[in-house]
């Protein structure tokens, strides 16, 4: 176990190395490529960026020299300053991180809380009305472009019905409200983004949970548990669910990269002041230090998430816990 965790942790620096290598490699090719400038959304920014890049990374120097320079900075936790407002990248990212974490952790919780019960009940009552309608919904959910869903949500609940605010997380005037009202405001602003972010994972995971429970229900030990005289409820909720959670937990870890990818879209659509939107804007403005910083950090977060899901797996499965 310890050995394994060590390997998982050791993979982090390797991964970060790879990411920075790719990023720098792409940057190395692109600023010289007029195509990038032509297609760039903001040619002026990219032109200034180019100059600053030369200055910052020494782009005239050989690639490996540049890379070494960058690595030294990363190791000393110096990600450089943003080209846009010249503030340190770490500071900017740290400002944005809580908003992203809040959104993603809430939607993860929502996914787990809703998808697993749906999957279990669907499998248990296979072929029932519930199963079939859940199956249909899940199927549609699975195929829905979620950014479009987010727009529809805004259109309907935000604009037409006016139930929820459609953008932002914490407008300036909130600070003048009492704490309870501040919290209520935040909650109402969270509803749409959390739902939109969770939607895709919800569909995928409940389907996965269903097939995983179905698989477990076919096992010999489930039949043996029934033969002991356990009620069907107990057989399903005790014997089947814990085993079925194993693959679900693994898949959860692998959902993280797409959650982070989703942040880029949803934070942009909902004007959410998180890392995703920061990264997107940095990309569009050729703000290289920020692009790189956000990339490195999101990779790191993914790895941490996967580490947590591994630990959860080991915690559930005694075959791993006791080597």
């Amino acid at each position, binding site marked *: 176990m310890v050995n394994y965790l060590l390997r998982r942790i050791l993979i982090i620096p390797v991964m970060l190395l790879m990411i920075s290598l790719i990023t720098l490699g792409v940057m190395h*090719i692109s600023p010289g490529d007029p195509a990038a400038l032509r297609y760039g959304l903001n040619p002026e920014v990219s032109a200034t960026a180019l100059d600053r890049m030369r200055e910052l990374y020494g782009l005239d120097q050989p690639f490996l020299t540049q890379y070494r320079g960058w690595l030294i900075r990363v190791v000393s936790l110096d990600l450089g300053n943003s080209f846009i407002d010249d503030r340190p990248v770490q500071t900017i990212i740290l400002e944005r991180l809580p908003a992203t974490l809040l959104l993603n952790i809430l939607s993860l919780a929502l996914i787990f809380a809703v998808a697993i019960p749906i999957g279990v009940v669907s499998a248990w009552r296979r072929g029932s009305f519930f199963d079939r309608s859940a199956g249909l919904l899940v199927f549609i959910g699975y195929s829905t*472009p979620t*950014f*479009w869903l987010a727009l529809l949500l805004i259109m309907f609940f935000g604009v037409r019905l006016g139930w929820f605010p459609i953008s932002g997380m914490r407008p300036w005037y909130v600070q003048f409200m009492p704490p309870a009202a501040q919290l209520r405001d935040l909650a109402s602003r969270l509803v749409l983004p959390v739902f939109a972010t969770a939607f895709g994972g919800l569909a995928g995971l409940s389907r996965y949970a269903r097939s995983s429970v179905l698989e477990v229900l076919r096992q010999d030990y489930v039949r043996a548990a029934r033969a002991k005289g356990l009620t069907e409820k107990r057989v399903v909720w005790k014997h089947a669910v814990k085993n079925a959670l194993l693959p679900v937990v693994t898949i959860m870890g692998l959902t993280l*990269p797409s959650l982070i990818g989703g942040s880029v879209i949803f934070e942009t659509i909902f004007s959410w002041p998180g890392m995703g939107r920061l990264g997107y804007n940095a990309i569009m403005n050729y703000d290289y230090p920020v692009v790189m910083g956000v990339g490195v950090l999101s990779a790191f977060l993914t790895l941490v998430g*996967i580490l947590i899901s591994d630990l959860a797996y080991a915690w559930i499965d005694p075959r791993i816990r006791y080597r």
Partner: protein
Amino acid sequence: MATVGGFLVVAMVLAALFAPALAPHDPAAADPRPESILLPPGPGGVMGTDELGRDLFSRMVYGGRVSLSVGLIAVGISLLIGLTVGAIAGYFGGWVDSALMRFTEMVMIFPAFYFILMVLAFLGPSLRNVMVVIGIFSWPGLCRLVRAEFLSLREREYVLAARSLGAGHLRLIRRHILPNALAPVFVYATLAVGGAILVESSISFLGLGAQPPTASWGNIIAAGRHYVESAWWMTLFPGLAILVTVLSYNLLGEGLRDRLDPRLREGRDGKSARG
């Protein structure tokens, strides 16, 4: 289920192939007069017009070409990489397998979407780049599937029997392993087409995919976003098109899985119930 999905898939491929015949107008023909922009669906066009007065239906038909070709080619690329890497890892096993799988794992947990956006922004957004980049980032799942199949198939007794008959690597892979591994790969690839179309539409929505004036479902939605309150049709129709397209690939894939992959077949035949 597979039949419905298959029918829709074929219909959409045909629509994309014969787009010029199907579209009533040139998708790029702008008519920016105030009386012809943002027209609701009606006699002027079954789906109305956009902010530049272009016929939305025509743009949708051409947008379908983009989605389908990106979906198919990106999956083709990922199949190429995934099959090769997975087959090598699974067939040879040992340290080759470990090394390749460590690498695959890394690509798998890579925050791919963000990097796709970055690469496209820096190298220049173009459909060709979109296909290549999606393909390059989406092979790990397929690779793991192929590897798992190969790993288990190469231990099968019929493969051992063929080895004891003097069959070489090529014969073993071609005659004994690959044919038995293809069904799940095919299912996975079908489902992956839907996934690639979703990614492409998100990229185009963010402005890094198909560039105007080329129409794609994603960038139509992006343009319509600014008229959410006044011109709902610009958001609704392309979104529905994506939904239906992806749904039909998923239906086809799931249907194929039920037919091809006996492990996931839910109804049991008599044999497994024999006492």
